[in-house]
């Protein structure tokens, strides 16, 4: 069988927002030749049953991600900064609304 010159189109990542005010979440991936068809395909595949009111499509190779090896050192600096959390601060007895 001849499969030369065949194309599977480029890979896109799809993010959907379920309802107004909700964060966008990664829904999955798909193949499409351009952004217009990527959006249409995303609607057809990832919002067939009202799962989304907004969709982002992003070329997969445009995404830069942290690596699992970063888990320690990359995120480490936040661990020794306890003062970023409200429960670091003591409030005088009797004060409730702060």
């Amino acid at each position, binding site marked *: 069988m001849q499969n030369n*010159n065949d*194309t599977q189109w480029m890979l896109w990542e799809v993010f959907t927002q379920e309802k107004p005010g909700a964060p966008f979440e990664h829904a999955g991936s798909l193949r499409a030749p*351009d952004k217009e068809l990527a959006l249409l395909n995303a609607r057809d*595949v990832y919002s*067939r049953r009202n799962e989304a009111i907004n969709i982002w499509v992003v070329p997969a190779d445009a995404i830069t991600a942290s690596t699992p090896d970063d888990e320690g050192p990359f995120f480490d600096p936040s661990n020794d900064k306890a003062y970023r959390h409200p429960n670091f601060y003591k409030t005088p007895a009797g004060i409730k609304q702060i």
Partner: protein
Amino acid sequence: MQDTLSKEQAFEDKIARGQVIEPKDWMPERYRKQLIRMMSQHAHSEVVGMLPEGNWITRAPSLERKLVLLAKVQDEAGHGLYIYSATETLGADRKELIDQLLAGKAKYSSIFNYPTTNWADIGAIGWLVDGAAIVNQTALAKCSYGPYSRAMLRICKEENFHNKQGYQIMARMMRGTKQQQEMAQDAMNRWWWPALMMFGPSDKNSPNSEDLMRWKVKLYSNDDLRQRFIDRTVPQAEAIGLTIPDKELKWNDKTRHYEHGEINWEEFNAVISGNGPCNKQRMNQRIKAHEDGKWVRQAAEAYAAKHYN
């Protein structure tokens, strides 16, 4: 070497703790290979699975049935896409996977090599074949590989519609004329055993199971899942007056499970090795669909190159 060993140990510990593995995490080559094998077979099954049902879209008995069947077959295409995408996160190339399928080098579920001879078969497929798929996929939704598990969650939601529309077709035929009842029973007789075979070889002869179970790619054995399917399906058949075509089938009050007769493994092996009733026809249809779609893929790409680059 030491490094690989400690990585492998860390990986095993992670799985034992119930953590989910993501695409960029280190994983043993065998884990990656087994997943690519399983997931690509699963994706191929979704795509080939459109053929036996697509056969009946133009001949559905009413407009409503036609709409439902069309929606179901569209869902299956989406399922194929989800799983191909999930397989790609393991470094597999989609074009290569599809080429393997079209060259006859890849497996897909043996069930799709049986013919759909009349409308009752569409009921039997939705009810029994999708019913068996749900039991399988509900288990896979809890598997250790993140992208596969997420694809399964999405698919399971949609399969329930497939399962119920199939059962409704069967139920309605069983309330119809004597001839319709006979058609439904005939479809039941032909699809029951192949549906049981969908869970794969018996545990005694399942070569890949041990690693897959430890790695939580599989959470239950083939026989356990088959049993779960039988237990939930027999009462459904009885409720609409269908008879399970297994004389040895009986309820065991002690184990709280149904006991069933021996599966014809010779038939199973013949079908997976290419000698089922429709293997050649399915592959030819699949190749034709792929070839017929080629100009569309190329035209869309040419359009994109002209307008977006």
